């Protein structure tokens, strides 16, 4: 028995929001409804919450309860939800829909009629609300409540005009944008309702549903048309909907219009097929609308069901207006194709007479050409154009033509060719990528000599849709990959073919050489490379990529790339006997003009970082090859003298390399920043090859004078991103590190890399410290942490944590005590409540250290606790929570406290959800453990989570 006193007790027992939700979610009897209503409930729906540009729709436990009770007490629930004041909270509306669908359709219809007036007033229906209303339409329709279902569908699917004034649509594009009518909700949801729920309505009330769909399409067309198109009924549907039937030409760019056309078409087809409506009546219904798309649907319907309306079919086909209307061209052509044969002879003659009389106006054609193509047309042959136009009209009815006309047709086809897609006013085709005139199998089947003959003789047509040199080159690459020895052994035969093919062949070899184990016939390939280098860089007059490469520049780049790969271990390496030959090729390539300063200005900067630019230019790739060559030479020479007392003498043993390196270090000789970046990127290689040379030239590679700033930055940033400093390197580059730290706030400039060089600088410094090369007292390190902004400092701290995490567990890494000392220094500097805000990210980055699992538990937990007390958040919270769950048995109180702070720090109520398993483990261990403080704190935390709405931890709480 639910007394007034009991309800009062219940209300008094609700102390917080979680209790309120709990109470209503756990009521199982509808007997509470009346007493609660008397007590004032069910009268104030949960208001929406607006913050800035966002809107939230909180759930209303009261309506949620009513939705659950609707099946048990439908009349009572109906009376309560019908008395709800109007609310914009969609969650309440969703609950009401759920309630309605638990009642009989009659009762649901009573509520729906009230709801319709609310929907009508809405400008937009948010989130899943439309998705909720759709099934209600079906429910009402299937339950025989067709009036309510139709009203609901009509209001829900109603369309509004584009609110933008014409001037605004003009400003937005070169052409004036068409008005964009919009429904009350997302187009996809709109389509789903039309696909899933409209058919249920159609099954119950066919004609009213059909009329409703037609009205929606009509309104959409009216709202999409410019004012000048309104009276004429011009909807340009032949553009946005080339075919009424399903067809690949329907690109569905106007999604809403398309799905409405589908809906009207499908409804009409179904009614005609099921004979739930008279075909003539349907056609008349469609033709009553002024927009041409309706006439097209009517023609489509007549074509599908011609036997039901033969006279009307003949009437439409023999209508001059229909014959001439280009908007109706597609459906008229298909109707004539299928039904011309059924026309009487005189009717056929009428149509053929119109075709015979077709004339073209050359002036109109010329004017159109000038207007839309911006140029004069070529010579026009009126007779041929007319024949073509007539053939377009004749082709659909070709098989039903009288003999004399069939003869004319065949004659004209011989003259001007068979018309393509005559049933469309315009026809779209597309192709992807360059295509080859020969397939891979065809190329593989050719001998090398046959292939070369073909490569020399075949000429692309120049048509963008047809096969191109690039396409054939791609196929040649694939052939070279499939059978490299066949083509490499005969490589010299490929002289004098177009550079497009030579480049493609070399590119194929590069793919094969990389990672190949078997021997590769290098000699003929090097011969071909040498021949290429003797060719002029540009081919006079060659401008179009459809003809092929515009010169030998790209082939040079392919050579540099191929040779660079040939020096690397693990690939099909070059024999050392080719040292002199290969050097001649490399040296020639290092003189290539690309990259020019203009090239770097165009493709570098924000577009591409310098290191990437260097491997995309001939000289850059060649300079990479120089350094790989040097390593290759050193490797071979050292192997030869193994066991002897001879020592490596650096560049004295390869003067050619020293000469080229010094040459390109001179900015007057080579001003390229991309080339300079290679010196920075490969600086540790230079040290390894010749420490003395590197030491002598370090100031040239990384010049610190103000006039060489861009050259310095090119080398320095590449060094930071690609290298880690060793002892020798740091000694050589100390002034540069010091200077870079001094410049920290100024180091911002436009760059293509997402990562910040200052962040990398910090990582270098903490790495040096980690390796024991500098100490906490080092001025560069200290200066970095003083000058760097919080984000950059955090990056360097997080870098250590992430690196530690990647190390295997059994080898926690040397230098952990050093790292602990680093963090202790950092926390002594930044862990002050007054400055916690400005050091927040650095403090939070400790999460990576903790989550790495490498530091001893007590130290790590203590530090984590200190961080959390200051900022209540840490990075890598996923790993942090997992570790807390592991340490809880040995440090229960601290683990619970850390968790409590993390939960407090979670900005959103759903924040703790991502740690739910770990929370359970931590709380249950602490509550079941022997540590009284931990038990108390864990219990309090479980209660706190309960107050946040997480009921799942209730079972953890000790029984009172």
């Amino acid at each position, binding site marked *: *028995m*639910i007394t007034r006193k*009991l309800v009062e*007790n*219940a*209300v*008094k*027992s*609700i*102390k*917080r*929001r*979680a*209790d*309120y*939700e*709990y*109470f209503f979610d*756990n*009521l*199982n*009897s509808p*007997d509470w409804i009346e007493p609660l209503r008397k007590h*004032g*409930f069910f009268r*104030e729906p*949960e208001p929406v*919450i607006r913050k800035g540009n966002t809107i939230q729709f*909180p759930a209303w436990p009261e309506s949620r309860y009513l939705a659950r009770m609707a099946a048990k007490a439908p009349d009572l629930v109906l009376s309560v939800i019908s008395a709800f004041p109007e609310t914009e909270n969609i969650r309440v509306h969703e609950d009401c829909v759920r309630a309605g669908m638990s009642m009989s359709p009659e009762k649901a219809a009573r509520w729906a009629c009230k709801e319709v007036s609310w929907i009508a007033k809405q400008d937009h229906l948010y989130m899943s609300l439309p998705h909720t209303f759709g099934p209600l339409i079906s429910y009402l329709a299937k339950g025989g409540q067709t009036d309510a279902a139709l009203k609901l569908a009509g209001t829900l699917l109603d369309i509004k005009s584009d609110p933008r004034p014409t001037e605004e649509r003009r400003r937005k594009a070169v052409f004036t944008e068409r008005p964009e009518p919009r429904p009350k909700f997302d187009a996809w949801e709109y389509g789903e309702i039309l696909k899933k729920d409209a058919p249920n309505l159609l099954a119950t009330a066919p004609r009213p549903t059909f009329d409703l769909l037609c009205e929606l399409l009509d309104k959409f067309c009216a709202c999409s048309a410019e004012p000048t198109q309104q009276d004429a009924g011009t909807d340009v549907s032949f553009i946005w909907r080339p075919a009424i039937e399903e067809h690949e030409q329907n690109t569905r760019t106007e999604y809403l219009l398309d799905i409405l056309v589908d809906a009207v078409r499908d409804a009409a087809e179904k009614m005609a097929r099921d004979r739930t409506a008279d075909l003539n009546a349907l056609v008349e219904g469609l033709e009553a609308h002024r927009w041409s798309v309706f006439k097209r649907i009517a023609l489509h319907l007549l074509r599908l069901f011609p036997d039901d309306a033969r006279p009307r079919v003949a009437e439409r086909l023999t209508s001059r207006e229909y014959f001439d209307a280009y908007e109706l061209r597609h459906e008229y052509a298909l109707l004539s194709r299928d039904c011309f044969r059924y026309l009487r002879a005189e009717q056929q003659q009428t149509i053929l007479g119109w075709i015979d009389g077709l004339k073209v106006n050359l002036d109109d054609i010329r004017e159109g050409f000038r207007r839309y193509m911006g140029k004069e047309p070529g010579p026009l042959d009126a007779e041929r154009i007319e024949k073509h136009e007539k053939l377009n009209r004749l082709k659909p009815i070709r098989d039903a033509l009288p003999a004399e006309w069939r003869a004319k047709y065949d004659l004209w086809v011989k003259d001007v060719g068979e018309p393509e897609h005559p049933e469309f006013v315009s026809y779209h085709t597309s192709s992807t990528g360059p295509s080859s005139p020969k397939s891979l199998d065809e190329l593989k089947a050719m001998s090398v000599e046959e292939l070369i003959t073909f490569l020399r003789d075949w000429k692309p047509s120049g048509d963008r849709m047809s096969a191109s040199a690039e396409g054939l080159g791609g196929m040649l690459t694939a052939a070279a990959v499939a059978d490299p020895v066949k083509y490499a052994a005969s490589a010299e035969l490929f002289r004098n073919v177009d550079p497009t093919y030579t480049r493609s062949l070399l590119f194929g070899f590069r793919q094969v050489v990389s990672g190949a184990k078997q021997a590769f016939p290098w000699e003929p390939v090097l011969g071909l490379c040498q021949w290429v280098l003797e060719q002029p860089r540009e081919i006079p007059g060659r401008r179009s990529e459809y003809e092929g490469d515009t010169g030998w520049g790209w082939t040079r780049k392919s050579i540099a790339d191929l040779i660079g790969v040939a020096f690397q271990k693990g690939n099909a390496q070059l024999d050392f006997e080719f040292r002199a030959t290969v050097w001649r090729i490399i040296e020639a390539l290092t003189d290539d003009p690309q990259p020019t300063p203009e090239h770097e200005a165009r493709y570098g900067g924000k577009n591409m970082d310098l290191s990437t630019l260097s491997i995309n230019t001939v000289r850059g790739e060649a300079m990479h090859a120089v350094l790989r060559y040097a390593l290759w030479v050193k490797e071979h020479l050292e192997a030869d003298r193994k066991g002897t007392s001879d020592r490596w003498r650096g560049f004295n043993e390869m003067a050619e390399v020293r000469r080229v390196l010094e040459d390109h270090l001179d900015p007057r000789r080579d001003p390229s920043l991309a080339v300079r970046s290679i010196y920075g990127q490969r600086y540790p290689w230079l040290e390894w090859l010749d420490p003395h040379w590197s030491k002598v030239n370090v100031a040239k590679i990384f010049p610190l004078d103000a006039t060489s700033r861009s050259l310095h930055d090119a080398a320095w940033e590449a060094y930071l991103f690609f290298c880690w400093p060793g002892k020798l390197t740091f000694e050589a580059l100390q002034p540069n590190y010091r200077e870079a730290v001094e410049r920290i706030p100024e180091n911002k400039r436009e760059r293509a890399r997402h990562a910040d060089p200052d962040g990398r600088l910090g990582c270098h410094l903490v790495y040096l410290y980690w390796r024991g090369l500098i100490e906490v007292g080092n001025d560069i390190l200290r200066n970095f942490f003083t000058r760097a902004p919080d984000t950059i400092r955090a990056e360097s701290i997080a870098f250590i944590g992430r690196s530690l995490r990647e190390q295997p567990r059994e080898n926690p890494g040397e230098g952990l005590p050093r790292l602990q000392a680093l963090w202790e220094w950092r926390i002594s500097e930044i862990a002050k409540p007054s400055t916690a805000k400005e050091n927040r990210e650095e403090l939070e980055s400790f999460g990576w250290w903790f989550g790495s699992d490498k530091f001893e538990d*007590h*130290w790590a937990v*203590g*530090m984590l*606790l*200190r961080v959390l*007390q200051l900022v209540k958040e840490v990075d890598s919270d996923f790993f942090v929570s997992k570790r807390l769950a592991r340490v809880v048995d040995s440090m229960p*109180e*601290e683990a619970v*406290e850390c968790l409590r702070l993390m939960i407090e720090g979670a900005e959103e*109520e759903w924040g703790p959800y991502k740690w739910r398993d770990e929370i359970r483990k931590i709380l249950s261990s602490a509550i079941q453990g022997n540590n*009284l*403080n931990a*038990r*108390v*704190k864990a*219990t*309090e935390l*479980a*209660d*706190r989570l*309960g*107050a*946040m*709405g997480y*009921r799942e*931890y*209730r079972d953890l*709480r*000790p029984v*009172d």
Partner: protein
Amino acid sequence: MHPNQEKAGLNAPVTNPLGASVAAPSISSLQLTGRQEALLRVLAERDRRLGQMYSGALHALCQKENPELRVQAAHSIRELLEKTLTYSNLALEENPRKKQRGQPNLKQRAQSLTEIWKKRAKRCQSFDGGKWDGPVDTHLRKILRAVSEFAEGVDTDYPKRKEKIRNLLRKSDLIKTALPNRIETLRVEEWQLCYEYFEGVAHHNPNVDEKDFNGWLDNLERFLLDQFSPRTFQDQTAIDRIIKEGES
């Protein structure tokens, strides 16, 4: 029994490896219930001064020979209720305008309004000898504008206690969606009744009934703990019992 009532556990400071601790203020001469200790700790965590006010009230109540013990305790409790609305980090955020240096205080605003009144009322044609009659002229318009600004400023910068209480309750609820107005109002009134009781005792009623006083104190302690250190699942068990009673 709720773990909060496990006395030994609750009085122990929470230590961490770095040595920082959060503990209830030491009241060695008092025998506190578990709930009182828990509340003391929770209040001290929010603001040390709140803990002191509460412990002051408890100390006063221990002075059995003191004829004013409940009056003095009520003083402290009234202050506690007042300052919880201000000191706690959940307090209503002050209007930044009020904080700005040079912004007039309430007295200055009232004086300014009075000045406008004096100056404009004399010239206003619709005001004659204490009677208003006639159209809104420039002077009356200026008076009305000044009154309107004054009222709006007071409303914003000096919220009523009930608004402050409502705000505190909302902010201390761990779900950010507010309780329905009717339930929230009941909670606000509960606070307000407590406040009025203790204020009454503090001002006028040294001979208040001990049992009555202890009952109010008990209510207040439960209320504050519910708000700041919720025992959600225990409360939901009570809700279960009510539902079961209603549906059986």
